[in-house]
């Protein structure tokens, strides 16, 4: 059931239109979920220079905390409390972990967050067990928002989009338009000067780390029930978030947003188009023989390699533009 080339010719037909509309919607949603995770990571890196390996683990904690809190109260309480709690854990991590190893340089910080990944993994298994927990979408959001071409669009997806956009707006305004944001940014580039002005710089670092991990927690609350809340979720989300942050440029919020959306759309379109490179070449009149290696590779459907494309994009951007899409520094 390989689509024939005539599909290219009928791009205006309803089937094609339907496929494009849904690919855009799906891609946007996946991209925004990625952004919710990547924003905290890129903030922490941009401001503190700490690459937090445990970021996806805080995301997992967010989902599990939301599950536990919502089982005693409801989803809305969890939506507020879980990110706060995860942020609090982040603050503890910074205050009693990172701050102590800071003097030994970035490698020590990196190793600390790396170790934290395993600690959190084991803790989650100890507390909540190996099998997935039943963290469900709240009934008040569990309905179909609209139906398009016979496919329904769930309200919860719209809610995820809404929260992600609101989050981006809030972070942006906080950093650029408020006095707090100004001090934070100043503390990160000129800590001694800010300290001399009477601000408590270590406390600002703690707050930034708490804020970043809190954002990861919020992403966990939103994605835990949309996907599955299970002990492997940090492991499966970790690599792709790093790709987003590197691709967008370490430390750049706008870059993270752009990279998230690009990666979301690329992986989605790769699946829904389901053509192979050979099909595309054949369409422009270049036949390829499947017998040799290049031909064999070209005959693999895009949908089978779609999940690999972001990693390929990361490698390419590291070669041709090491600072990423919108990154500020070369390193």
């Amino acid at each position: 059931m390989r689509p024939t080339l005539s599909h290219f010719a009928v791009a205006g037909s309803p089937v094609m239109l339907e496929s494009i509309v849904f690919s855009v919607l799906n891609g946007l949603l996946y991209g925004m979920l990625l952004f919710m995770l990547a924003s905290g990571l890129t903030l922490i890196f941009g401001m503190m220079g700490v690459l937090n390996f445990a970021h996806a683990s805080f995301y997992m904690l967010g989902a599990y905390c939301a599950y536990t809190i919502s089982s005693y109260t409801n989803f809305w309480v969890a939506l507020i409390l879980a990110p706060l709690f995860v942020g609090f854990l982040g603050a503890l991590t910074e205050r009693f972990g990172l701050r102590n190893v800071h003097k030994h340089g970035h490698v020590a910080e990196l190793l600390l967050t790396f170790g934290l990944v395993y600690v959190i993994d084991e803790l989650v298994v100890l507390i909540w067990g190996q099998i997935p927990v039943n963290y469900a979408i709240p009934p008040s959001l569990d309905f179909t928002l609209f139906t398009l071409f016979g496919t329904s669009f769930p309200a919860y997806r719209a809610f995820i989009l809404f929260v992600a956009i609101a989050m981006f707006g809030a972070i942006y305004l906080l950093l650029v338009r408020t006095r707090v944001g100004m001090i934070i940014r100043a503390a990160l580039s000129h800590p001694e000067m800010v300290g001399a002005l009477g601000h408590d710089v270590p406390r600002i670092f703690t707050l930034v780390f708490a804020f970043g991990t809190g954002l990861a927690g919020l992403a966990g609350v939103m994605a835990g029930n949309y996907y599955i809340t299970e002990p492997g979720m940090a492991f499966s989300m970790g690599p792709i978030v790093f790709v987003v942050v590197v691709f967008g440029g370490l430390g750049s919020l706008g870059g993270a947003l752009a990279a998230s959306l690009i990666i979301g759309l690329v992986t989605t379109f790769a699946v829904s188009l389901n053509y192979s490179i050979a099909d595309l070449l054949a369409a422009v009149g270049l036949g390829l023989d499947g017998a040799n290696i290049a031909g064999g590779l070209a005959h693999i459907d895009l949908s089978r390699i779609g999940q690999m494309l972001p990693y390929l994009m990361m490698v390419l951007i590291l070669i041709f533009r090491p600072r990423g899409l919108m990154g500020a520094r070369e390193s």
Partner: protein
Amino acid sequence: MKHYKGLVRRAVAAVGVAAALAVPTLGSAADDTIKIGYIDPLSGPFANVGDAGLKHFKYLAERINADGGILGKDVEIIGYDNKSSAQESLQILREAADEGVHYITQGNGSHVGGALVDGVEKHNRRNPDNRMVFLNYAAVDPALTGEKCSFWHFRFDANSAMKLQAITDYMAEQDDIKKVFLINMDYSHGQAISRIAKEMLKEKRPDIEIVGDVLHPVGKVKDFSPYISQIQSSGADTVISGNWGNDLSLLVKAGAQAGLDVDWFTYYAGGLGTPTALGKAGAEHVKMLTEWQENLVEDYEAPELREILEEFEQRYDGIEFYYLRIKTQMDMLQKAMEKAGSTEPLAVARALEGMTMETPFGTVTMREQDHQLLQPLFISTFSEDYPKYDSEGTGLGWVMDAKLDAASTAVDSVCEMKRPSS
């Protein structure tokens, strides 16, 4: 390098053997337990599955021991973590051999199963006095009892071709199935399903149209919505998927969220966290083909199984009794050892060949030709309206749709087995 390591290992082993021989009480004759080495992932992303399997073995071994053991000996289950790696498993195999383990069991991943079949075959050729038997409880690649078959390997799960035979037999009788979509994980297991399903459907129901056949990367897809859009626009009414774990849950969940109205025919929707992850998303639409689900004890007279399922869930807080085939495996092993009057691997393997056993659901047979167990299989639906036992506290349980007799699930094998003469 590998060679060199092997030499060192063997040298160390030789010293160990020499030391063991110096102490007359050691050596296999004096072993008072029957050791079964369990080689499966106990860490990493599939740790939950491996851990649940180990609990099944330990629990069933305890039951046998409480009943006086086998030939007066206790059964001991030793868990080895292979981290889902074939390489790691082969190292474990050597370790286990040195520790006096003569029976190994594995299930998660046919790539590991295949490596172990080769590994055991080689080991037994080199060490005719210290042989091993491989009891496979879940690796379903047909090749393991086909072109790669081995005298030392016994499979207690229906292989993938048999499962598809059963599913397509059932589908052939459902007249409302018109368009089928195949979506599977992109490795030997998923590829085999895609290939065999097409062949069998073409033969049994030529009028059914295969409207899609997709392979996706294993364990990498977070958002299945684009795949769901494809299924939706293909107009499929039925989907066949051999997916397992999160790849199945996420797929079905994404389908439910998009309002996709299809029936899912699956292998692995029944346990180890998948029902929890599916929740209401799977209700009335997810079917599975298995040798067991809890509500079968309502349909058949099976007091022992009822006791096991209730005790097991209580003991392991929330983990349900999922692998009836592990019980079948342990029971048949016991029967073979008693028949052989010995725990010596060759005698036991010979006794296992062609053995039949009665179970509450019918007779099971270890086919002599290829060491593939033939057992009754069931098609069930995940439903809100279930007889007695719900699945993982979800408020949904499995309801039997159809039983497929052991004989009807048999698929011809190309296996030509070389049997040891002594």
